[in-house]
């Protein structure tokens, strides 16, 4: 347990020393919330949650987006870069347990995700009067835990499939960003949304994560507001991500070019 704790703290330290990563995972989603509410005004409009203010719609979605980028993109790129630098190989040659190292990477990313979500919710409540009810906070916490775990598993899968940083970065962005558009995150879905788009979003985990979290913040939902079927979909994706990682994950650096060039390579921040 102490070993795991040490690994989490070390990964945290590395995160905070990479300002670009900190900006994209924490500051960027908050900027989007401020921008969206400024552009559309904080007026009420029709959403899947009913007629709510735009901040009430955007806050849970962007909070979930921050959690997904910290875990999925963060873990995927971090591990691909540590592998490329030969750090994962070094770990395998020491008595440090591999599970503790990976646990440190995953839990540190979940911790950063929690900070991102907390910052978003606090800003939403304080600046825009977003609705949070004590009776639905357990649903928010459980949804966050299940959703983050699911996207962390997908981050491990990403680092397993994308062998290099040069592959991990575009793969992460090319999957998460389009997904956000079809998952009721950036663009509100309503009765006019084409059925196929609705269906497509339902296949993937981000929409379920966002809607489950949004329902727990929805002023019209009844406490405790657990969305069990959505959490179930997230758990299926968790299992799929973990299976891919267990099958494909490698600690060996990819063979790219001369070995001597690795000293010049730096990890690419998210």
């Amino acid at each position, binding site marked *: 347990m102490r*070993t795991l704790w*040490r690994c989490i703290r*070390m990964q945290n*330290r*590395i995160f905070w*020393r*990479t300002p670009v990563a900190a900006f994209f995972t924490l500051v960027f989603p908050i900027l989007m919330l401020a921008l969206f509410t400024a552009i559309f005004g904080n007026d009420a409009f029709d959403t899947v949650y009913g007629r709510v203010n735009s901040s009430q719609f955007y806050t849970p979605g962007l909070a979930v987006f921050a959690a997904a980028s910290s875990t999925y993109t963060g873990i995927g790129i971090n591990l691909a870069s*540590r592998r490329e*630098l*030969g*750090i994962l*190989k*070094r770990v*395998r*040659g*020491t*008595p*440090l*347990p591999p599970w503790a190292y990976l646990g440190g990477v995953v839990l540190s990313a979940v911790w950063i995700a929690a900070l991102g979500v907390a910052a978003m919710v606090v800003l939403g409540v304080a600046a825009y009067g977003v609705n949070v009810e004590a009776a639905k906070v357990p649903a928010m916490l459980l949804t966050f835990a299940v959703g983050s775990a699911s996207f962390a598993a997908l981050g491990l899968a990403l680092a397993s499939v994308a062998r290099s940083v040069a592959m991990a970065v575009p793969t992460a962005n090319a999957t998460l960003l389009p997904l956000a558009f079809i998952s009721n995150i950036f663009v509100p879905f309503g009765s006019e949304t084409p059925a196929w788009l609705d269906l497509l979003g339902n296949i993937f985990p981000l929409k379920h994560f966002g809607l489950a979290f949004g329902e727990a913040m929805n002023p019209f939902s009844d406490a405790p507001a657990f969305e069990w079927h959505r959490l179930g979909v997230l758990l299926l994706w968790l299992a799929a991500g973990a299976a891919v990682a267990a099958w494909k994950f490698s600690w*060996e*650096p990819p063979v790219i070019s001369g*070995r*001597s060039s*690795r*000293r010049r390579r*730096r*990890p690419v921040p998210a």
Partner: protein
Amino acid sequence: MGPAVAVSELVKDYGAVRAVDGVSFEVERGEVFALLGPNGAGKSTTVEILEGHRTRTAGTVRVLDTDPSSAGAAYRDRIGIVLQSSGIDPELTPREAIDYYGAAYSRRVPTDELIELVELDEKADARISTLSGGQQRRIDMALGLVGDPDVVFLDEPTTGFDPAARRRGWELVERLASEQRAVLLTTHYLDEAEHLADRVAVLAQGRIVAEGTPAELRARAGSALIRFAVPDRVEPVSDLLAPVSGDIVGRGRHVEITTDTPTSDLARITGWAAERGFELEGLTVTTPSLEDVYLSLVADDDDDGAKALDDGDSQT
């Protein structure tokens, strides 16, 4: 207690390619054993099998009476690895990295002691990303030694060092052996092997083509090497060379003779040249270096390799 490292008939195949082909050697405690060989000779594969990074195809491997392929944390607690291909988190400082990786070992060397040992005092709290290549290699060294290992694997440990740092690196390796650790070294530098190694094995095409102390290997090449060049107009030197006792290699005007009787051979050669009234350019008599032996061993093998490759091509 057997030898610290015992490798017997080790074989490693990558698909159809046999990277290691029946390698056997032992390393005792307190001994520095060097694996020499060109890129692709199987050095790294051999060492990585011993470290537990790779599995083997056949043969037996015992390190500290343990089979590395099935060994766990207890085994890695007793070995130290300094690999060229394993990096360090560039966001950390040397002190943080040593503390982090060191905490996993049961017998750990204090961080300050290691920082002093590898002479990184001034940079101990600087980001690793700001350090030079040579300084980063020294942290590699510190991280390899942080667990007070019984067996140390050093993969080209002084690559990127300036000459002074290299000397100090050598002193460090000598000290490791004097502390009764077994040291397995791979290197491209022959002077490094000659200076540090108690015994050397030359690997080529996955096989050990020569093994012994540096002095024994040098002796394989005879006791002396005579080199000279004849002037252009001189006809084939074969009439001169027939009575010479050693091995003769002629490349155009340049002649190399490896001999155990340098005095009589030299007398014959100079007598022959003086009779005809010309000078032998660049005439030298030297003791063959480990490099001479190495190059001849590896060159022989390269020819075989090239032939094998041609055969393969003609079949496809």
